[in-house]
């Protein structure tokens, strides 16, 4: 099912949560809404689900406007950040809840509900835990129960709010892989919210980067990382050094060093150059490049991290596999950026 948002505007008091946001998720697509807290990503997700109402704009499912349709008639599966499992019900009762509240005419009989619940529990690999209560489960298990419960009502789309937010790093990684598999078998259009860039880049077909209630970029993980459309996206995704620069005729100048090929093209004037720590070549002093002084060198495994400072005082972090031999703090070095992204300041 295609899910689309059109010109969504939402205010909370004086705060603008969403400012004219439009977006479309293709059938079967796995879409990530990525951004810092307060960027409006959760609000957008809740508006898609019908849990929140936009001030203006509309939501369409397969081109049909569902804006006025209440949540319970939208057939969305929603997985809450803290799971919102009903703590007085067993795992099986939680998963079956959506089926037992259907109007009598549409409600499957008890045996059919049991079969469906068992099916879902084995899909989420919890077939043996149906009689437990949520409080007896681990975080990762609760999260899978929440997913099974959302899937039980055969939703048109699956919406997940920070699905791994409350889990520790190891569990998070395992569940991520598993969720990707579930998504592939179900072929459901899915949208999930995250503030974790690694999660978004790893899981999603396309990533929607949001900031201050607007969409900065919608693209594949590779594209948002390698061809960020704005300074914000570049800064938010991955680690980057930010350096003041001057842009003239497509070329940029950092600390007296001129670099010709920049992407994306930016207007002439003062700008900010983003260079990732691993996108420098470290050369001996005197070569063309940005002249710096080494402040500190640390080795973590195969990589070496160099903390450098320009004569203007700016700090630059560099990582490299092969630092020049015999480097000591205080040494003068030249950094040659291999790749620079510059944006107007």
């Amino acid at each position: 099912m295609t899910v689309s948002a059109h010109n969504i505007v939402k205010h909370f008091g004086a705060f603008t949560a969403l400012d004219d946001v439009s977006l479309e998720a293709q059938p079967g697509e796995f879409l990530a809404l990525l951004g810092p807290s307060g960027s409006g990503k959760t609000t957008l997700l809740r508006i898609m689900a019908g849990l929140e109402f936009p001030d203006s704009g509309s939501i369409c499912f397969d081109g049909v406007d569902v804006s006025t349709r209440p949540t319970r008639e939208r057939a969305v599966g929603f997985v809450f950040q803290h799971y919102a499992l009903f703590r007085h019900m067993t795992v099986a009762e939680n998963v079956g809840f959506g089926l037992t509240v259907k109007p009598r005419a549409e409600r499957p009989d008890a045996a059919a509900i049991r079969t469906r619940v068992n099916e879902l529990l084995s899909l989420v690999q919890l077939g043996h835990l149906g009689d437990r209560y949520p409080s007896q489960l681990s975080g990762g298990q609760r999260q899978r129960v929440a997913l099974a419960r959302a899937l039980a009502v055969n939703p048109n789309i699956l919406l997940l709010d920070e699905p791994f937010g409350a889990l520790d790093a190891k569990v998070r990684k395992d569940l991520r892989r598993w969720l990707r598999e579930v998504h592939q078998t179900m072929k459901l259009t899915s949208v999930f919210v995250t503030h974790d860039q690694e999660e978004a880049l790893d899981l999603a077909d396309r990533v929607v980067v949001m900031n201050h209630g607007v969409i900065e970029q919608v693209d594949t993980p590779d594209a948002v990382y390698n061809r960020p459309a704005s300074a914000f996206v570049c800064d938010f995704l991955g680690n980057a050094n930010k350096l003041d620069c001057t842009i003239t005729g497509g070329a940029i100048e950092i600390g007296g060093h001129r670099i010709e090929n920049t992407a994306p093209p930016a207007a002439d004037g003062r700008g900010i150059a983003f260079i990732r720590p691993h996108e420098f070549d470290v050369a001996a002093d005197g070569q063309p490049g940005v002249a710096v002084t080494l402040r500190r060198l640390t080795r973590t495994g195969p990589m070496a991290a160099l903390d450098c400072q320009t004569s203007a005082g700016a700090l630059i972090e560099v990582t490299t596999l092969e630092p020049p031999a015999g480097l000591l703090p205080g040494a003068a070095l030249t950094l040659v950026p291999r790749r620079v992204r510059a944006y107007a300041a």
Partner: protein
Amino acid sequence: MTTVALPAATPRARRGLVERSIMPGFGLTMGFTVFYLSVIVLIPLSAVFITTAGMGFDGFVEVALSQRALYAYRLSFGAAAIAASINAVFGLVVAWVLVRYEFPGKRLVNALVDLPFALPTAVAGIALTALYAPNGWIGAWLAPHGIKVAFQPLGVVVALTFIGLPFVVRTVEPVLADLGPEVEEAAASLGAGRWQTFARVIWPAILPALATGFALAFARAVGEYGSVIFIAGNMPYKSEIAPLLIVMQLEQYNIPGATAIAATMLIASFVLLFAINLLQGWSRRRMAA
């Protein structure tokens, strides 16, 4: 598919009193709440002020500020202040002991603290009278020393102390419990002695809660009736509390007189309520910091 939004179908948040929500039942629950609140509380309470307004200023002053009424206010507020002070001291000790120390029967003691909330005031009143009457367990012991409690203003203080204790304990307790050992250990590691730690670290932290507890106990005591009338002796100009004076006026079918005193008491209650709200705000800010 089209990408044009249809303004006609656009749901708009109501700019009125309530924000739009997917939760059901606002009209029903809010309607009943406001209706019931108005019928049971607001309209009857407004009757006091409307009836008082009908008396005219002079009529009001004549009753509400009569000599007998002034004595009654003085007793009600004075005894309430003394009782709340006693409770502030002992309530703090009780809260401290319940939070900090372990001793046999602690759970029982903890439950007993709430007795004044659960015991009907009339029962408390006759029990205290039996204890403090000249032939009672405590009264018989005090009488040889020339101390009379029952049927004296002192009896009013005893009754008001009984009903006020849990207000102080239950307000101070959570703040004291929240004040983890870390801050005290920090103070100790910085070289503070036990007394300095209490005076400079603990006391400032619990003071707002203690003041709130005092005010709650005081407010409750000012309006208290049931536990007081048995032990007070109820002599006009001496041991007659303000709520009793209202009842006296009513029994003489002097409804305007009763209403005028009631209006005075209500205004005092509202001032106290406002003060308590300020104190609670202070207490919350302290706890959040």
